[in-house]
C-alpha cells in the first residue's frame, strides 16, 4: 500500500474513535447504552442493521464460497435475506409493544418468568461470544491478506478500537459507527466489483470465463446439501440479540418494520456483489485459496487512495458486526444474567458502569477466543447451531400469539437443545443434515404440545403492550 492509502486507513480508525468520544456524552443511562434512548429512526436503523449482519460471512465468506462453488452458495445465503424480510415485516414491529425492553430476555421474562430470561441470557451470550470471536478472527484475515500484518497483532489492534468506541459510546457509538461502516462497504465493494469487471473484460467475458456449474442455481450441490445449508442460513441467525436490540432502539413499530424489512431486501443485492467478486477472483487469480478471494481482488485491482478506503471498507464489514455483538453481550450479561442473580435491584448508574466494564472484559475474551478458531464461516455456523432450536419458537410464540406457558417454553428450549446436540455432535449429523433442523422441529413440536396442554392454566395474553419493567413475573 502507498502512503496515501495508509493515511486514509488511519483516518478511518481515528474517525471511529472520534464517534465513540462524541457519542459518549449521549450515554447517561443504561437506556442510552443499550438502545440509544429509543431515538433511532428507520434509515439509521436500516444502515446499522445491514452493517451488523453483512459481516465476514456475507462478504469474505460469500466471495470465497462463490469462488469455490459458484453462485449456488449465494442463492443459499439468500435464505438469510428472506428471513430478515419476514421477521422485519411480521415480528419486528411487535417487539416495540414491549415498552422499556433492552433484550430478548425482557420479553421472555414478561411471558414465561425469570428462568426463561436466564436461559435466554445464557444462550444469547454463547451465540454473541461465538460470532464476536469469528469477527475478530476475520479482522486478522483481512489485515493479513491486505496489509501483510501478522494475524495476532492485527486482531488485537482491530478489536482494541472496537472495544474502545463500544465501551465509550454504547449503542449510540455502535449504531453511528455502523452507519459509517455501512457507507464504506456499500460504496466501495460495488466500486471494487465495477473495477474488477473492467479487469476481466466486462460481464460477458466474466460469464464466459467461469465454469458453467458456477453459474447454475444448484451448482455441484445435491438437493439435500442445498436445502440443509438453506435451512441453516434461514433459521440460524433469526432475530439474534443485536438485531433485537437494534429493533428496540427505534422510536415505534413503523420505524422498526421499515428499517428491518428494507435491510433484508438490501442484503440480496449485497450478496450478489460479494459473490460476483468471488467469481472475478476465480478468473483473475485461480490459484489462490478461496477465503482470500475478496482481499486479493481488492489488493491487486484498486488504485492508490481507493485501495486504502477499500481496505477500510473490508475492516468496516467485520468491525461493525463485532461491535454490535460486543455491545449485546455486555447488555445481556448485565441485564439477563448478573442483575437477576444479584440480591438487590441495581441502580441505573451502577448498571451503566457494569455494562461498560463488561464490554472491555468480553472484548478481550473474544480476542483470545478468535485466535483459536480456524475458519470464519465454520465458526459462524457453529455459533448458529444452538440459537434457533432453543429460543426462536418460544419467542415468536410470545410475540406473535401471546403464549405465556412457562412449562412450554422451558421444555421446548430443553428439547431443542438436546435434539440438536445429539444430532450434531452425538450422531455427527446423519444424512449431512445440520442439527439445527431436527432441533427446530423438536422445539416446535414440544412447544405447541405443552402450550396447548397447559393453556387453561396459562391463558394467552390479549393486550398488545407490556411494560417489561413491571411484567407480571418481575
Amino acid at each position, binding site marked *: 500500500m502507498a502512503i496515501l492509502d495508509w493515511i486514509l486507513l488511519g483516518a478511518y480508525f481515528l474517525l471511529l474513535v472520534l464517534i465513540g468520544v*462524541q*457519542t459518549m*456524552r*449521549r450515554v447517561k443511562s443504561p437506556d442510552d447504552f443499550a438502545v440509544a*434512548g*429509543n*431515538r433511532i*429512526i428507520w*434509515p*439509521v436503523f*436500516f*444502515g446499522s442493521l445491514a452493517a451488523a449482519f453483512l459481516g465476514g460471512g456475507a462478504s469474505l465468506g460469500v466471495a470465497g464460497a462463490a469462488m469455490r462453488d459458484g453462485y449456488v452458495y449465494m442463492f443459499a445465503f439468500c435464505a438469510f435475506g428472506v428471513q430478515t424480510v419476514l421477521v422485519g415485516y411480521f415480528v419486528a*414491529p411487535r417487539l*416495540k*409493544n414491549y*415498552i*422499556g425492553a433492552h433484550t430478548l430476555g425482557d420479553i421472555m421474562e414478561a411471558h414465561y418468568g425469570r428462568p426463561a430470561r436466564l436461559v435466554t441470557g445464557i444462550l444469547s451470550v454463547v451465540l454473541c461470544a461465538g460470532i464476536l470471536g469469528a469477527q475478530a478472527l476475520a479482522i486478522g484475515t483481512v489485515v493479513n491478506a491486505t496489509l501483510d500484518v501478522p494475524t495476532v497483532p492485527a486482531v488485537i489492534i482491530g478489536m482494541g478500537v472496537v472495544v474502545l468506541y463500544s465501551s465509550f459510546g454504547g449503542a*449510540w457509538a455502535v449504531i*453511528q459507527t455502523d*452507519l459509517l461502516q*455501512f*457507507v464504506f462497504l*456499500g*460504496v466501495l*465493494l*460495488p*466500486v471494487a*466489483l*465495477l473495477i474488477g*469487471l473492467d479487469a476481466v473484460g*466486462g*460481464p*460477458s467475458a*466474466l*460469464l464466459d470465463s467461469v465454469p458453467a456449474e458456477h453459474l447454475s442455481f444448484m451448482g455441484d450441490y445435491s438437493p439435500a446439501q442445498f436445502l440443509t445449508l438453506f435451512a441453516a442460513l434461514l433459521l440460524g441467525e433469526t432475530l439474534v440479540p443485536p438485531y433485537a436490540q437494534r429493533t428496540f432502539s427505534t*422510536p*415505534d*413499530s*413503523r420505524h422498526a*418494520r421499515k428499517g428491518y424489512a428494507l435491510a433484508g431486501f*438490501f442484503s440480496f*443485492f*449485497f450478496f*450478489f*456483489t460479494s459473490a*460476483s467478486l468471488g467469481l472475478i477472483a476465480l478468473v483473475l487469480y485461480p490459484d489462490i485459496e478461496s477465503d482470500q478471494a475478496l482481499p486479493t481482488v481488492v489488493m491487486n485491482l484498486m488504485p492508490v487512495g481507493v485501495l486504502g478506503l477499500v481496505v477500510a471498507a473490508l475492516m468496516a464489514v467485520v468491525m461493525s458486526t463485532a461491535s454490535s455483538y460486543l455491545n449485546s453481550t455486555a447488555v445481556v450479561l448485565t441485564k439477563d444474567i448478573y442483575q437477576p442473580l444479584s440480591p438487590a435491584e441495581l441502580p441505573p448508574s451502577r448498571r451503566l458502569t457494569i455494562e461498560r466494564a463488561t464490554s472491555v472484559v468480553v472484548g478481550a475474551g473474544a480476542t483470545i477466543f478468535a485466535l483459536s478458531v480456524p475458519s470464519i464461516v465454520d465458526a459462524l455456523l457453529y455459533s448458529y447451531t444452538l440459537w434457533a432450536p432453543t429460543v426462536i419458537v418460544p419467542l415468536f410464540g410470545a410475540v406473535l400469539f401471546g403464549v405465556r406457558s412457562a412449562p412450554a417454553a422451558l421444555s421446548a428450549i430443553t428439547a431443542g437443545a438436546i435434539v440438536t446436540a445429539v444430532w450434531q455432535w452425538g450422531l455427527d449429523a446423519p444424512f449431512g443434515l445440520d442439527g439445527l433442523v431436527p432441533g427446530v422441529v423438536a422445539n416446535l413440536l414440544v412447544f405447541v404440545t405443552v402450550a396447548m396442554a397447559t393453556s387453561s392454566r396459562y391463558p394467552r395474553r390479549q393486550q*398488545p*403492550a407490556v411494560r417489561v419493567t413491571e411484567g407480571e413475573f418481575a
Partner: protein
Amino acid sequence: MIPTLLYYGVPTAVVTVTLWVGFLGWRFYVEEVLRGDRGDTTAGEPDHG
C-alpha cells in the same frame, strides 16, 4: 443485455441506496449527537402497528 444490466445495475443500485441512507444518517448524527436535540418525545411509545 441482461448480464450487463445485472452486473452494472446492482452495484449502482447498492451505491445509490447507500449514499442516500448515509446522507439521512449524517443529518441524524448532526441533530442528535452533535447538537444533542431531544425535542421529540415519542421515544419508547408503541403504536401497535
